[in-house]
């Protein structure tokens, strides 16, 4: 079960992220969230990505990854809640509220990805969509514990869980986020985004603390 230590290079001002770090990524601008998310989850040469995409087709995900780093889409296993499955690398689920299937598929994809590489980046985009789709939020927490945070711990992987704070999740989103924040190792909150760049507030990462402007 050993992996090569050394952290995960983000290729951004966020620097290198330690093995096993779980990151809660928040913001109310979905396009900025998307940009930061894919920058963090795209696999380097000796890595694999596993992405759960609640609102996108699998091909959209691999294109986004390729846009960050050439070939990153080929180093990804995708679980998409839109579109169809394709080959061994893209699985599909009809309903983001079917958290049982999402958990089974995500665990299977992580196991498949581990056959390809020891070093994994695992991402959920968007967890707020899971909260909105689930009947019982306890199921989302159980899913995060069992099928997301556990994989990061067991595989010393880096994980990114994105929440659109403008989404209607049927509960006070600020309260949900501040509760979730305590279970994650780091938090990246998008403060401002525009043509000039994206400013994020960071806590829990070794190389950055406080506000930093990302040149994405």
């Amino acid at each position, binding site marked *: 079960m050993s992996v090569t230590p050394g952290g995960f290079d983000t290729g951004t001002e966020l620097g290198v992220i330690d093995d096993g770090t779980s990151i809660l990524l928040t913001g109310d601008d979905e396009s900025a969230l998307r940009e930061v998310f894919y920058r963090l989850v795209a696999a380097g040469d000796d890595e694999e990505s596993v992405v759960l995409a609640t609102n996108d087709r699998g091909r959209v995900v691999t294109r986004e990854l390729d846009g960050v780093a050439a070939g990153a889409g080929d180093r990804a296993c995708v679980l998409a809640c839109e579109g169809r499955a394709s080959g061994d690398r893209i*699985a599909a689920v009809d309903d983001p509220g079917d958290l049982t299937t999402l958990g089974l598929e995500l665990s299977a994809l992580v196991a498949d990805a581990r056959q390809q590489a020891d070093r994994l980046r695992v991402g959920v985009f968007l967890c707020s969509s899971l909260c909105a789709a689930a009947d019982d939020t306890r199921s989302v*927490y159980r899913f995060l514990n*069992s099928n997301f945070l556990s994989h990061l711990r067991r595989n010393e992987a880096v994980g990114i869980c994105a929440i659109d704070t403008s989404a209607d999740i049927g509960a006070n989103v600020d309260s949900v986020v501040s509760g979730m924040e305590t279970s994650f190792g780091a938090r990246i909150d998008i403060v401002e985004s525009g043509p000039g760049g994206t400013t994020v507030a960071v806590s829990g990462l070794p190389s950055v603390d406080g506000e930093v402007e990302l040149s994405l």
Partner: protein
Amino acid sequence: MNTRTVLCIDEEGAVADTAEALSADSTLDPITRTTVAEASEAITEEPVACVVTEYDLADGSGLDVVDTLRAERPQTPCVLYTDVRPGEVDTASFEELIVEYVSKDLPDATEQLAFVVEDLIDHSAQVGFLRPDNEESRLEALSAYDVDELPIEDSFDRLTDLIASHFDIEVAFVGLIEEDEEDFLACSGADWDSLTREDTICTHSMLQEDVMVVEDVQADSRFSENEQLRTLGIRSYAGANMTTPDGHVIGQVCALDNEPRTFSEPERADLQRFAETAMEILELRQSLLSARTETEVDV
């Protein structure tokens, strides 16, 4: 050495292999069943540390077993250990059960199963609530208080009566949040002993810096499907943290009502002061007990 019982369910002939895979870990004690009915009976009879089940069973599916497990022992972890691919699992009636999945087709399937089972048990990794990242030290801080030995019952009974009267609410309580449940030290307006942690609002409230208010439990998706809260008649909630001098949140002081209601900023500040008072009582009683114990040892 403590052993952890793992309930293994598979067809006759295969279940022994599953048990053998787990027996390699001397801390795990596998017991076997071969049907949904037998497994459900075992789950109901006594708690186990983990459940490992095949999907295809003679009288149903592994998810039928998980369904019983979630109803009877919601915080017990479960692994679906099968050669059936996830896409072939029928989840139509089980969309929010959540289990771990290990494929029997993996080249190192038995090693993976033992590794995952041990990890799930060690980290209580399938509970329906989020834990603070300092949970281990928080539980250590909580265990430092000899609650059973402290003469706190009368003090807390008076305090919760006072809280209920002050806010004109149905129920007020002081609760300590243990690893798997919340224990109520005092409860005015109801006769509650303990609740499974994932059924409590306090396990959410303890993660907030400020007093957490849920004006209408039925309008909040975190709690609206929680049958336990409905059964207890909890419709509105306000909870304040009991924080130890070294910063660990070990419990909550709460004000509940059976109808939606708001809590003003001054009321929230009052509740926080009640929580600080409860913590002071606990702290002082513990100091007194420790001093007496030391004196007895010296004598």
